[in-house]
């Protein structure tokens, strides 16, 4: 009897410490952030002192003031996700089906750049694409870009940086789902007179959809909230919502607006993700 009881309790006991931790340091902060988002500055108080006034108008002000940055975050994140998919899919496909004995080694190579701090790599891009790097003078001498055109401090550089930094997050899930495909399904498709393109469209791609969904999510979510790429590779004209939240917190000490912006960002991402998962028809998330 007591044994049966411990058996029922056991999963909960295993969950307890971890969930207590997540409750205290993930759920509570989010609730607290929600509270902060409707506060207003205390009249005559010091900087950074706020009181609860249930000012839901904070959301409207925060959003209308930063519409442009919101839109940019989502456009940039979308571009980076599509680019990453375009680069990562053939890469994952080649590793899964064409690499032979090199498979594991190539897989390690995909993850390997991770270990050089991503900031060092992003700054390396800045220097490679910068005025003193070798790319800009070369392109200028061939005449592809004009004398005054730069590559850094542009939207192009920010999107490229994000694509680069989140590429492994796209490649790994794609590889995982491609690798699971039985090659005989593709052979069968060929036996039934489908050409390469039809086989890909009707067999390989549908079977790899869980990887596509997981990879695009793992790229899009961090990209939409990112501010490091925009800070290093961009200019004041390419500010994303992350940059705004960061400066509201640290430079302006405007916690309510930062909180309202964070919440709007999170809500927007969650809504997009839910719609996307419904459309893509995969409930299998993790």
């Amino acid at each position, binding site marked *: 009897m007591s044994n049966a009881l411990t058996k029922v309790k056991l999963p909960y006991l295993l969950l307890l410490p971890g969930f207590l931790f997540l409750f205290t340091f993930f759920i509570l902060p989010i609730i607290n952030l929600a509270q902060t988002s409707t506060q207003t500055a205390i009249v005559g108080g010091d900087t950074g002192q706020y009181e609860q006034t249930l000012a839901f108008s904070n959301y409207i002000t925060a959003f209308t003031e930063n519409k442009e940055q919101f839109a940019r975050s989502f456009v940039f994140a979308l571009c980076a996700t599509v680019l990453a998919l375009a680069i990562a899919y053939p*890469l994952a*496909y080649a590793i899964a089906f064409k690499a032979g004995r090199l498979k594991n080694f190539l897989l390690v190579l995909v993850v390997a750049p991770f270990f050089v701090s991503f900031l060092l790599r992003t700054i*390396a891009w800045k220097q490679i694409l910068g005025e003193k790097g070798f790319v800009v003078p070369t392109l200028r001498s061939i005449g592809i870009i004009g004398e005054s055109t730069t590559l850094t401090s542009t939207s192009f550089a920010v999107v490229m940086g994000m694509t680069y930094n989140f590429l492994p997050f796209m490649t790994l899930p794609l590889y995982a789902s491609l690798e699971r495909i039985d090659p005989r399904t593709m052979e069968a498709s060929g036996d039934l007179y489908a050409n390469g393109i039809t086989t890909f469209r009707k067999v390989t791609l549908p079977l790899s959809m869980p990887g596509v969904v997981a990879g695009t999510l793992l790229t899009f979510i961090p990209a939409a909230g990112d501010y490091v790429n925009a800070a290093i590779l961009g200019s004041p004209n390419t500010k994303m919502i992350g940059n705004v939240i960061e400066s509201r917190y640290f430079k302006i000490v405007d916690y309510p607006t930062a909180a309202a912006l964070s919440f709007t960002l999170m809500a927007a991402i969650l809504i997009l993700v839910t719609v996307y998962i419904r459309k893509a028809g995969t409930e299998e998330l993790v």
Partner: protein
Amino acid sequence: MNKQKDATIPTIPFNALVSRWFGRNLIRIYAVLGFTYLFIPVLYTFAFSFNDSGKSNLVWKGFTLDNWKNPCGAPEVCTALGNSIKIGLLATIFSTILGTMIAFAIGRYAFKGRSSSNLLIFLPMATPEIVLGASLLSLFLVFHINPGFWPTVIAHVMFCISFVVVTVKARIASLDPRLEQAAMDLYANEFETFRRVTLPLVAPGIAGAALLAFSLSFDDFIITNFNSGTLKTFPEFVYTSAARGIPAQANVIGSAMFILALLIVIAAQFVGRRVKVSK
């Protein structure tokens, strides 16, 4: 008949041969380009770790081994590295323990609330880092806890747990349940079965999760930046010194981490292969 066919086919023009070769190898060419893209900044970082650069490592000034001989030549670099390693190890230990327990609960038992548990694990991964960092800082401020070393460790444990759970859970799901049944048939009790069969089989997954947790923690900037206060981790050091040029010693550390990680992975592969062979 085949011979006849061959005879009637005129010699294939060179252009067609080239385009056929491209058609067949397109995916390989694409993969090579993809890897080039991935490795350009890595090679750049590595090359500039040998730059005789002085203070600012922006232009190539000449080859030197000094940076590698004396990686603490820029003292801030080593302090920051030390902080990152300490935080990374603590975060790895705590998140691996907590996450593995959750993974066993979710992966092994059917219980009420299992799907909402899955949701709670998924949510931190679906939340942008900046929201995680900002909300945690707000909480610390409410309780008058100053940002610094321990708040950073807590923040890292928080975002690493989910990744540990997902990794270990995947390993548990791939276990053959018959192995445990066999152990039970051989009169091992539940605890012995767990210790001598289940745990060794899940161990590679736990090790992988720990490695992942460490690298996530070591490389994190956004959440750290919100919760570390005046303490500087290695990524924070790189970020703040980016404006006036990063000392080449930072490149040495980045490159050394890269080489170290590659060696660990290769060693793990070898050990894995030997275990397989000896079985």
